[in-house]
């Protein structure tokens, strides 16, 4: 995960440490208790606005409640979510039932002219309500989302005023005072992996009001306070979820969700306090089920202490009470909640799904080009529709590929599963990979009628460092770079410096003499140095060997082969892996002298010092084995050693016939 993203998340967590309250806008949420991170419906605007973006394209959530002190069901909230882009979503909440009402009874006794008490409803009626809420979320990355929610509350106070009219009769009238209060929440979610998610919210991070009440009513105003929540959710399987969260109100909430049958859920939640003398604040239970685009939930929250929830409360206690929201406070009574959810919009069932992905090969930058033709992996694709489909699998690593690749179309019958291979075309950036690195590769499948891929599968792809070699001699030639400027400079200089000598050498011996001159030049320049890790799996490009003035047998072999080929001399690798001792494996070189076999005596009378091979032009010529590890002893010794090895291993030991020696012609690649 990106460090910057982690920092951003930590900053949000720290700011969250000042955090959340519960909401009655979701039966699932209230029965899960710890829902800031497990919320999966449009009530996310209340729980954690960062979760808005994780919902469907269009989603609607309607929640009714009935409490122990209400006469019937009340529409708590109707909220909706709409995605505006892949990464951004907005939400809107209409909350007619989010209301708290308090009355101060009239204590004054007013007697009419006949001495009878005049009945009055109340002295003051105080109403707190939320008018509307709006939310926005954005996915900063595939791991981190942030969101914000804005709410407007109304606060009405109806004050009964008495007056004396011109006939000295006492009358009364109601005076209504109203103000609006706004608040702003922020939230974040961080997906750690498929199982874990963490996050936080700050409720009422900022809040204010449009105007003030008269002084004598100000104590009765809705007073908000800031609350921070942090939490985590863990979903080890599709049918089980657990979540925990804590807030700056010193409440810890724990919730469980279990799916005993497909699309049927059971939930429970516990609301407890760190330091309370009572073991818990509330207990919640719930259940729910899904049918296609609809879901229904039921939840019940029970408060063992009924101190303020439905009865009377002292005015001074009320005046000092501050709120996080209107749903969950000291005045909240036992509630039965019913929620209906549905999602609309461009949701579609994928025609094809990827069940698994198998990356067949690690990627070696030197040989990365082969994946344009050789599959880098396969995807197990299932036809998820009831019809025959045509599916293509694509693959993309954004860091080292310019565009995604796409396989040929494969036809799948209904329910058929097929392993579809996919390729990769890497760009030049892969050559700058210095060491073993891990990249995220995206594998996706496109069905015939889908405009976008029907399913995607995130997988890990190993990309080796540019000098890594898989040990296969057939891929070693990718390190041979005869056209490299440094190689060309070197070979041209050697030939040029001995121009006069070469002018006197007969034509058939030109290749041999030039090869000897190049080797002897390397003798003066290079030193034999083992691999950094004493491994044959690390190969230097010739440019690096010439710059570093040394290398091991692979490096010098590749370098010498590059020099030979830069002046038009063909070469071949001899890869020896002894049957009885694989650790003694080594590589040396054959180069083509261009001399026909009948003229081999120009070089030597000893036929054991060379071999006859067919050249590119389909003519047989004399090839000289060179053991490059004999670099310091000069060309002749390297020839002798190479020839002796080749004779013993290839001809007497029948290594080529038996397959433990491979002679691979070097083909120039760029």
């Amino acid at each position, binding site marked *: 995960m990106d460090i910057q993203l982690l920092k951003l998340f930590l900053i949000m967590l720290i700011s969250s440490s000042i955090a959340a309250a519960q909401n009655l806008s979701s039966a699932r949420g209230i029965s899960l208790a710890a829902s800031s991170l497990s919320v999966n419906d449009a009530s996310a605007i209340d729980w954690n606005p960062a979760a808005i973006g994780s919902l469907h394209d269009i989603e609607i959530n*309607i929640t009714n409640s009935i409490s122990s002190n209400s006469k*019937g069901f009340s*529409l708590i909230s109707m909220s909706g979510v709409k995605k505006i882009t892949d990464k951004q979503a907005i939400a809107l909440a209409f909350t007619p039932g989010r209301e708290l009402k*308090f009355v101060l009874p009239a204590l004054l006794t007013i007697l009419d*002219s006949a001495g009878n008490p005049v009945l009055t409803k109340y002295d003051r009626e105080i109403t707190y309500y939320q008018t509307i809420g709006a939310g926005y979320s954005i996915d900063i990355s595939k791991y981190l989302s942030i969101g914000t929610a804005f709410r407007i509350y109304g606060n009405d106070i109806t004050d009964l005023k008495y007056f*004396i009219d011109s006939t000295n009769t*006492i009358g009364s009238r109601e005076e209504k005072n109203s103000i609006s209060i706004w608040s702003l929440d922020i939230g974040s979610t961080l997906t750690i992996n498929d199982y874990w998610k963490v996050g936080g919210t700050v409720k009422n991070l900022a809040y204010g009001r449009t105007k003030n009440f008269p002084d004598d009513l100000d104590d009765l105003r809705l007073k908000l306070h800031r609350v921070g929540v942090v939490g985590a959710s863990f979903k080890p399987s599709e049918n089980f979820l657990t979540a925990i969260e804590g807030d700056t109100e010193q409440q810890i909430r724990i919730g469980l969700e279990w799916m005993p049958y497909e699309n049927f859920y059971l939930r429970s939640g516990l609301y407890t306090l760190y330091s309370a003398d009572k073991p818990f604040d509330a207990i919640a239970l719930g259940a729910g089920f899904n049918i296609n*685009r609809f879901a229904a939930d039921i939840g019940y929250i029970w408060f063992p202490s009924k101190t303020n929830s439905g009865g009377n409360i*002292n*005015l001074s206690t009320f005046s000092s009470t501050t709120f996080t929201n209107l749903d969950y406070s000291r005045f909240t009574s036992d509630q039965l909640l019913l929620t209906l959810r549905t999602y609309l919009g461009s949701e579609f069932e994928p025609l094809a799904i990827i069940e698994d992905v198998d990356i067949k090969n690690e990627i070696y930058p030197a040989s990365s080009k082969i994946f344009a033709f050789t599959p880098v992996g396969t995807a197990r694709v299932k036809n998820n529709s009831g019809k025959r489909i045509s599916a293509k699998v694509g693959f993309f690593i954004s860091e080292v590929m310019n565009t995604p690749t796409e396989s040929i179309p494969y036809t799948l019958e209904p329910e058929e599963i097929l392993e579809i291979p996919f390729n990769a075309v890497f760009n030049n950036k892969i050559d700058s990979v210095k060491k073993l690195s891990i990249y995220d590769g995206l594998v996706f499948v496109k069905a015939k009628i889908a405009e976008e891929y029907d399913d995607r599968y995130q997988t890990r792809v190993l990309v080796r460092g540019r000098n890594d070699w898989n040990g296969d001699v057939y891929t070693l030639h990718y390190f041979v770079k005869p056209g490299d400027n440094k190689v060309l400079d070197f070979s041209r200089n050697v030939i040029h410096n001995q121009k006069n000598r070469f002018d006197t050498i007969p034509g058939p011996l030109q290749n041999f003499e030039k090869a000897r001159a190049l080797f002897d030049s390397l003798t003066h320049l290079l030193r034999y140095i083992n691999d950094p890790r004493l491994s044959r799996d690390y190969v230097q490009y010739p440019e690096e060997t010439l710059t570093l003035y040394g290398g091991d047998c692979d490096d010098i072999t590749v370098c010498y082969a590059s020099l030979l080929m830069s002046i038009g001399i063909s070469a071949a690798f001899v890869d020896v892996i002894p049957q009885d001792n694989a650790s003694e494996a080594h590589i040396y070189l054959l180069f083509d002298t261009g001399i026909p076999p009948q003229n081999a005596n120009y070089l030597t009378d000893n036929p054991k010092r060379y071999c006859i091979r067919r050249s590119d032009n389909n003519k047989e010529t004399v090839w000289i084995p060179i053991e490059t590890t004999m670099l310091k002893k000069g060309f002749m010794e390297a020839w002798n050693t190479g020839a002796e090895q080749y004779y013993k291993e290839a001809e007497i030991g029948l290594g080529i016939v038996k397959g433990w020696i491979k002679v691979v012609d070097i083909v120039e690649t760029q």
Partner: protein
Amino acid sequence: MKILSAVLGIVIVFTGCQHAGPIELINEQDDSQFIEIMSVGNPSDTVFSASGVDSAGLLNPHYFGRMMFADVYYSLPLRADSFLQLEAMFLDKSKPIQYNGHLFGYPSYDVGTLMFDDDTIPRLQRRIRLGALGDTLIGYRYLLRKQHQNGQTFRYNWRILGNAGFGPLNTFAPTIQEMRVLEYNPPFVPANGPLTFRWRCTNEYVHLYISREGELFQRSWVPILHLRIRNVNGTIELPAKVLDMLPKKQYRHFLFTFSSEAQSVVTMQGYQEQILLNTASIHNIVLNTELNK
């Protein structure tokens, strides 16, 4: 479209509009529960209705006569005063005074010599102006105002010595405890907020009359509120809600009259209707409004 229709249907069916009932708040600091507010137009048997408001006798049909004793203490912004006021009137309900079809009141009897303890109460003429008839004598009232003397005690003995078949009567009015306001805070009528009084008196109820200034050429004070206060511990915090009833913007001063009252009735031989005996200890306090303090 089907889905949308289904959703809308569910919304309609599923939506309820029954809000939870209100939560009642208890204000233990509010003294309103100890206060009854009565209109001063009410024919209550109070010191005011006896002495001024009902001077025509129109408002109280139950008594034909009233004898009132008041021990009055005045706290004005710059001085204090105290006096005794004795007042009595006996109405002849059989001869209502009407002019142009309107009832103006009743004539009052001359009952001869009226005494309270050892004091004879002077008899004064009652006159009213009835259009072209000019000033007309409609009877007599009795009124004595005298200086209050410290340490003075009373027997509360009312005596009518008799005149032309009226009386005699010898009776005792009920005794009462002295009402004295000890302090009030703030020392003005606040624009917003309560006003607290503390007094010395243990009667179960204390009456408070709040009067505004009278208009020019009218009486000095016009009562606008009558409060009957249950005397819990010798104090009351008048809620802002009560004080807001006062016309604080129109008037600069208000008179707060605290009264400890007691009453009894007595029947005189030859008359079916009763005579009301009022005894009151009164403390008047004049307070400026906050804007004029």
